[in-house]
């Protein structure tokens, strides 16, 4: 099984590299076999088009070429040469009373150098590919010309983009958006993980520089300045996985049971019930979670009730409590359980919706024949309903797990300001027992400006999620199982 699954993945990877190789060999071919104008296109990108009388195209690519050169000279050259050191001149200023303004030296800003260098690299790579593609296009034109085929006019080319190559037109904007809003920030995050960008090295006043992999070494307990960082990391990672597992499992099972209950013929007014459960979705999470947090605070209403009915004293007397209150959300064991329980309340309605949808599409013939064969409801559930549900909702389950690894809202809103850790080693690394990697990361950047460690943690979270998703998807959506339900 595993071997079979590995094959498509491996084929995809080799296919990708083959495609790149082919691109380069095509380019080499075009340069070698092209006429003088194709070769001239290496320098002046419009040359080939001009020779084939595609003047408008020639002007456009020439403008792009000039723009790229101008971008390089006026923008990229300000930053890229400093990319290796991330800047050397620290900011200094002198106040000038006459002008009422400060006079600054020509200082370096490490963050801008990093960001704008990266931006330049991306632009250059894009332009380089465009430049190679251009030579290949021109060579195609040459071949067409030699074969005496019709060469498109500019109008025909435009028409072609609407008729035959419409997908390119459609995808241009989204791809551009992904590069600017996703690819560049992610690459930046990765780069920051290899610098010492933190409170001690905050641009613009101070500079930061490259430190290699030392952030990862201290993250995994390699000593250095952060003695307890590795300690905290392992515990937080553990709780993150435990949380993701239980929160996914409990809401999934809860959702299925609830929808079975609501779908049962004996349930009266199922619509009313369903609507009631949906209300939790309708109220924004941060409102309901903050309210619940106050209910279960050390001095909240839940504690008042418990102490009025004598539960607090009872627990105190049998030695389960040392405090005047039940630490629902403020002591590790209690808080861990409470968070998972509260998450059931938040998460079940979503799962119920999904399960209801799937249950409505259960293959009726199978249920019917099972009943004819005398299967009991429990057997039907275990042998037909559940396997079918698992099969259909499997992918959603994987996404849920990954989503829960990064479930910032529930954890942060329920514990921020309420939970104070009693574990001193954790506190020394600004961590809490109830933190997920993502909330820890948030506070490190937000409260402690520890961007370098936050980036390192971010990369680790990404790797965990990516590996898990790949593995789980390969297992669950193995092609062979699909036929079971056809």
């Amino acid at each position: 099984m595993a071997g079979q699954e590995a094959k498509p993945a491996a084929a995809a990877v080799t296919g990708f590299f083959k495609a790149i190789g082919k691109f380069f060999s095509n380019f080499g071919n075009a340069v070698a076999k092209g006429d003088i104008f194709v070769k001239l296109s290496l320098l002046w990108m419009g040359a080939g088009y001009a020779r084939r009388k595609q003047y408008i195209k020639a002007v456009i690519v020439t403008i792009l070429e000039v723009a790229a050169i101008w971008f390089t000279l006026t923008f990229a050259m300000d930053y890229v040469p400093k990319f290796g050191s991330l800047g050397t001149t620290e900011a200094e200023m002198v106040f000038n009373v006459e002008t009422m303004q400060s006079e600054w030296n020509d200082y370096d800003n490490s963050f801008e150098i990093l960001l704008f260098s990266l931006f330049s690299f991306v632009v250059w790579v894009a332009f380089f590919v465009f430049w190679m593609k251009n030579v290949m296009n021109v060579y195609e034109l040459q071949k067409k010309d030699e074969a005496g085929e019709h060469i498109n006019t500019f109008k025909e080319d435009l028409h072609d983009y609407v008729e035959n190559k419409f997908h390119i037109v459609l995808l241009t904007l989204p791809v551009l958006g992904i590069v600017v809003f996703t690819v560049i920030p992610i690459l930046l995050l990765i780069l920051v993980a290899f610098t010492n960008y933190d409170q001690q090295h905050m641009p613009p006043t101070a500079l930061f520089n490259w430190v290699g992999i030392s952030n990862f070494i201290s993250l995994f307990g390699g000593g250095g300045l952060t003695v307890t960082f590795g300690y905290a990391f392992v515990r937080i990672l553990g709780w993150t996985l435990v949380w993701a597992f239980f929160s996914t499992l409990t809401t999934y099972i809860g959702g299925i049971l609830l929808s079975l209950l609501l779908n049962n013929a004996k349930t009266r007014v199922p619509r009313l019930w369903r609507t009631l459960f949906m209300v939790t979705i309708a109220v924004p999470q941060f409102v309901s979670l903050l309210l619940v947090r106050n209910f279960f605070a050390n001095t909240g209403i839940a504690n008042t009730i418990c102490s009025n009915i004598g539960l607090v004293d009872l627990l105190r007397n049998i030695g389960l409590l040392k405090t005047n209150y039940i630490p629902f959300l403020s002591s590790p064991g209690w808080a861990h359980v409470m968070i998972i329980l509260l998450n059931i309340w938040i998460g079940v309605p979503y799962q119920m919706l999904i399960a209801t949808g799937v249950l409505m599409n259960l293959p009726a013939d199978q249920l019917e024949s099972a009943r004819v064969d005398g299967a009991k409801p429990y057997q039907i559930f275990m042998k037909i309903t559940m396997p079918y549900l698992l099969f259909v909702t499997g992918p959603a389950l994987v996404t849920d797990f990954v989503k829960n690894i990064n479930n910032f809202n529930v954890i942060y809103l329920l514990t921020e300001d309420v939970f104070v850790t009693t574990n001193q080693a954790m506190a020394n690394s600004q961590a809490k027992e109830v933190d997920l990697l993502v909330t820890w990361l948030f506070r490190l950047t937000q409260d402690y400006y520890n961007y370098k460690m936050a980036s390192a943690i971010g990369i680790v979270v990404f790797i965990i999620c990516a590996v898990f998703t790949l593995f789980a998807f390969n297992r669950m959506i193995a092609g062979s199982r699909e036929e079971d339900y056809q």
Partner: protein
Amino acid sequence: MRKNMKKCLAVLLTAVLAGSVAGCGDNGQQSSGNNNNQSSGDNSGDTQSGSGSESKDTPATSGETIKLTLWGAEEDQDLLKELVGRFEEAHSDQKFDIEIGVESESTAKDTVMTDIEAAADVYAFASDQIADLVKAGALANLDEVGAALSLADKTLDDVKSANGEAAVEAATVDGKMYAFPMAGDNSYFLYYDSSVISEEDAQTWDGLLKAAGKAGKKVGFTMASGWYNAAFFYGAGFTTGLNEDGTTTMDWNGTSPDGYTGVQVVQSMLDIAGNKAFMPMADGNGSNLIASGDLCAVVSGTWDAKTVQDVYGDGYAATKLPTFTLNGDQVQMAPAFGYKFVGVNAYSKNVGWATVLADFLTNEESQATRFEQREIGPTNLNILDTDEVKANIAIAAVTSESDFGVIQLVGGKFWDPVATLGENIAQGKLSADDEDGIQKALDTTVEGVTAALE
């Protein structure tokens, strides 16, 4: 992370803009990054020669509109609008474009440090943030830019002498003044219900807890916060300090100059926290709890004055922090005494006028208006001396603490470990008999607080 992303995007967009501006001609003034520094240098050069020919004494830059951004607390917006109006009137020969934004004093540092160059020219912040802000270069050195105050016909020395000595000292880092003192009530003291607790009981923790226990009520204190629980340690003579590299010094695991050990202090705190009439509060959750009416006394600050007054009614009273029993003695708790400041962004384009505005917002007249409209305790000595200020129960209580209050100098690593120490005490995770355990907990706390910044 999220903020960082936002910042990236902002920078990217500015990059695109900067590119287009520079494209139109090569004299882009407001483009971002390094280009900017050169061009502002050119600008100042030009203006310098221009104004130099006019007159040498008065630094005048009229003609150009001065653009400034000002950040203040949400509750202060109306007040700030009024004060800015007066400021523009006072300097009517100069055109201004002053934009007022909302930024709480308690979170100013976080927002400013996310992108100092994009932060406001003038902003209000709580005094505990000053060390980090100075370290990040986000505050202009007033000893340097204070010369601009000649526009308001005063000098920095006038500012220093007009405000309380302690307030000026708190605004000073490494011998240089970095901010204008605005408010002197950023500390905590004891509110109590005089119908339950007598004035005498309110003087000691023992008396408080006893009276509260008798009445079936509770005394609220925020144990799990390094701002509040430090009052026990400061009272016993322990200290915290800030090194030049941003790390914190702390001696709580040793013996104080007064002869008390840190272990003894923790034992006293455990004694208080273990009392049934003691109610540990969560940081920032005070108002809810006070409103519930369970508390007959609570340690909080002027921000809760109205809530407490509503709940206690005629019994409303406030006084300095109580004393606590330490090794058989009654020792006065020494609160972390904080101020609210107005600072000038070092990266401001118009740092001179920004300084003049910051001074105006904190001068005697403005502080008087602030007290009238918002009941915020002043730092200006003349206003502190007025009968109105003295008659305000809460402000009288907090200002009475300025004699023994401690200016809390700590770095960012202080808060989490000390909060954890307090939480351990509040939850009774430490035992008063286990001196070794307490010592070890204190050692770990000190280790975490004094750790190098990574």
